């Protein structure tokens, strides 16, 4: 695989018919980690030292192996391989594991599926050697050691693995070497040895490992697949005969996928809370577009609409040849009576808030959207703490019994309609130090104050230990300038308070 990936890179460091190997610095100089077919035909094997290889094949070309790049390429491939199955795991350094339970029939059987996978990888310039069995271990062994018969029959792992060498079990090289020296060359030979004696022959850990590996390969012990991404609750996929580039085409695909997904959600009585659209490019990469929903929904028009504005920014590359739509989170959603009169939106959509939830989703799922917020009061005297803005769609908690900020009807408003993001310092002239301001300068403009109401003293909330330090009481004034504009000023601190600096004036809000 490393060779293939290096070849896929832009500039080849060697002639096409020249033997080529990737090297890595080992404890005793450079060693070969991968060789291509020409080099293998010349008699080179991996693990050999480069100097030995050079002596055998003087015209050998070599390049340094980049393990990290290989791993990230493998990860990319694994994401791309989710087009066949949602359960994909890495088998580093050069393998991928796919759980295809209940999937093969979608690809016209196991044989056809393997052939299809092979063709797709060949299209990327990669050689893939598949193996298919009831357990991960067995599939891995078949892929690596039995490319001529890669598929094990149903419950036929035992005989499929029988002729394979013990190295296929994935044991460490020392154990393999010991087994070989003992004459235990194939896995089949291990079947005949009683477990107790197998354990006796080896150190406990090794024997435990051999037995465990064997059991996992034969399906006697559990060996679950650890998938790359948690598999979706519901998923639908669509493979295209020709790669698509245009946004219109992709939109159509997503709409049809959304309809299929919603059908499945409907049958299960569920609604999607979080959906992911995965678009597979023909060059082996993938675009993932997640979208959240404020309320569970299974309206295909709505779900498809969430992706509409995200498609503008995607790069289809050489075209998109497969797409999946997955519901990663679902919640129960009751069946609702749709309108009896065709063509009319049911009137209860407005009442139960689903129209609003859909609007919130559309806004929140735009790339530059901030989401719909609801302002909610908080029980606090401090003005900037008395409000919180919450995204809608969550259960609204009961309103607390507000202590200070509840407006009383009939009075003139005592709180401004806007609160500055942070209080801004103003220069104030007052007749007496403690008195109301007569003149203030804010943002370089002087305002002559005609009317003032105050002070309203707001003391720091001493019961919040975290904010006690450096907090001083504030005296708030509502002031009106000559033009009739109303401002909310405050003086922080007290005059004559020993040990504290002089009080300072700030502007905190604007009245309508």
């Amino acid at each position, binding site marked *: 695989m490393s060779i293939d990936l290096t070849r896929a890179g832009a500039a080849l460091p060697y002639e096409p018919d020249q033997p080529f190997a990737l090297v890595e610095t080992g404890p005793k100089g450079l060693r070969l980690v991968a060789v291509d077919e020409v080099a293998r035909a010349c008699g080179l094997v991996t693990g050999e030292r480069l100097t030995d290889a050079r002596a055998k094949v003087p015209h050998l070309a070599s390049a340094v192996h980049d393990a990290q790049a290989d791993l990230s390429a493998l990860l990319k491939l694994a994401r791309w391989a989710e087009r066949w199955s949602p359960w994909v795991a890495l088998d580093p350094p050069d393998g991928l594991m796919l759980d295809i339970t209940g999937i093969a029939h979608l690809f016209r059987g196991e044989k056809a599926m393997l052939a299809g996978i092979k063709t797709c990888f060949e299209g990327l310039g990669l050689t893939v050697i598949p193996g298919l069995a009831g357990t991960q271990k067995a599939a891995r062994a078949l892929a690596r050691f039995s490319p001529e018969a890669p598929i094990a029959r149903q419950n036929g792992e035992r005989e499929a693995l029988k002729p394979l060498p013990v190295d296929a079990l994935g044991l460490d090289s020392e154990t393999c070497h010991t087994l070989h020296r003992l004459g235990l060359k194939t896995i089949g030979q291990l079947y005949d040895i009683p477990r107790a004696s197998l354990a006796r022959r080896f150190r406990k850990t090794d024997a435990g490992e051999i037995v465990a590996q064997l059991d996992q390969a034969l399906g006697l012990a559990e060996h679950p697949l650890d998938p790359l991404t948690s598999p979706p609750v519901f998923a639908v996929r669509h493979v295209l005969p020709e790669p698509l580039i245009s946004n219109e085409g992709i939109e159509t695909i997503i709409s049809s996928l959304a309809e299929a997904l919603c059908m499945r959600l409907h049958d299960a009585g569920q609604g999607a809370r979080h959906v992911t659209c995965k678009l597979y490019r023909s060059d082996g990469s993938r675009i993932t577009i997640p979208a959240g929903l404020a309320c569970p929904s299974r309206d295909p028009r709505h779900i498809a609409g969430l992706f509409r504005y995200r498609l503008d920014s995607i790069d289809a590359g050489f075209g998109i040849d497969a797409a999946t739509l997955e519901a990663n989170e679902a919640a129960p959603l009751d069946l609702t009576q749709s309108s009896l009169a065709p063509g009319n939106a049911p009137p209860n959509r*407005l009442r139960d808030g689903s129209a*609003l939830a859909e609007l919130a989703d559309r806004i929140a799922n735009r790339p*530059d959207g901030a989401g719909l917020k609801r302002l909610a009061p908080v029980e606090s005297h401090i003005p900037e703490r008395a409000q919180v803005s919450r995204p809608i769609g969550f259960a609204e908690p009961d309103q607390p019994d507000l202590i200070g900020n509840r407006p009383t*009807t009939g009075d003139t408003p005592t709180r401004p309609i806007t609160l500055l993001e942070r209080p801004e310092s103003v220069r104030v002239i007052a007749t007496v130090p403690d008195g109301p301001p007569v003149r203030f300068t804010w943002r370089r403009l002087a305002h002559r104050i005609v*009317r003032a109401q105050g002070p309203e003293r707001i003391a720091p909330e001493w019961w919040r230990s975290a904010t006690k330090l450096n907090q001083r009481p504030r005296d708030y004034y*509502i002031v009106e300038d000559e033009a*009739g504009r109303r401002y909310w000023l405050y003086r922080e601190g007290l005059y004559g308070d020993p040990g504290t600096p002089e009080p300072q004036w700030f502007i905190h*809000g604007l009245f*309508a």
Partner: protein
Amino acid sequence: MTLVSKITAVNGQVRPFCGPQHAPAASRPLLDKLRKAISRIEHREPQFAVTEAPSGIAPGQPSPWNFGLAGIDPHLPRGRLETGAVHEIAGANYGESPAAMGFALALATRLLAIRPGDPRPVLWCRHTPQTHDFGELYSTGLDALGLTCDRLLTTTFGKSRTLLWTAEEALKSGAVAAVIADMDITVCDLTATRRLALTAADAGAPVLLVSGKPPGQATSARTRWRVSAAPSIPPPFDEAAPGEPAWTVELTRCRGGKSGKWSMVWHHATHSFSLASTVSHRTVEHRSHPGRRSAAL
């Protein structure tokens, strides 16, 4: 718009709002038919056929969205603000943005008040520079002016285009009773506001474009207001304190209506306006000269 002006030009006698009275009797059915056709094209209720008096609202009908003031309502076509339209509310200068916001809020509150069975909220979209300059919406203060926080949704955007898109989507969804778009109005050209106006007409919900400064170009707004703060009338118990919010409001453009300028006070408790001069014996002009203030009292 274009269609109407063409027809007006052909029938020299026909003028907006005077048409039915001045047109010859024979051409009246034809004119009515044409007007209906135009209204259908423009997606709205007939504007030029003034068949009812501004105050003549049938008892079963929903109450109109107006000011409730005999001094202002006759200036509006059919004595009301149109619900499915764009209304532009600009501060007289940039510092008057809070006054414009307050006026928009008062209009939205009146709209909510005339539809008691309608639970839909008002969406207040804001442009980020506005938030930087004038601060974030403060629910307690909005509550004190009559718009409770359970009837208010807000969202903030850095781009005006996104804000326009959001306003349009909100109208289309039918989930909001009104949209207040608090933004730099200079980006709202005729095309953008025309789109909004058509969507608003389909949805039957108004868009209130609020801005710190008057727009420099033509827009598709049905009415255009310029608002500035006015000295308030002090509450009776505290002569030195500021009173309820007061604004000087100028109707600079109103299709099918008359422009005018008023000073009004907003009473949040009753969701009503009153003209400043009728509340107090002092007018706004008096109040702007602080020297004369004490003499008037």
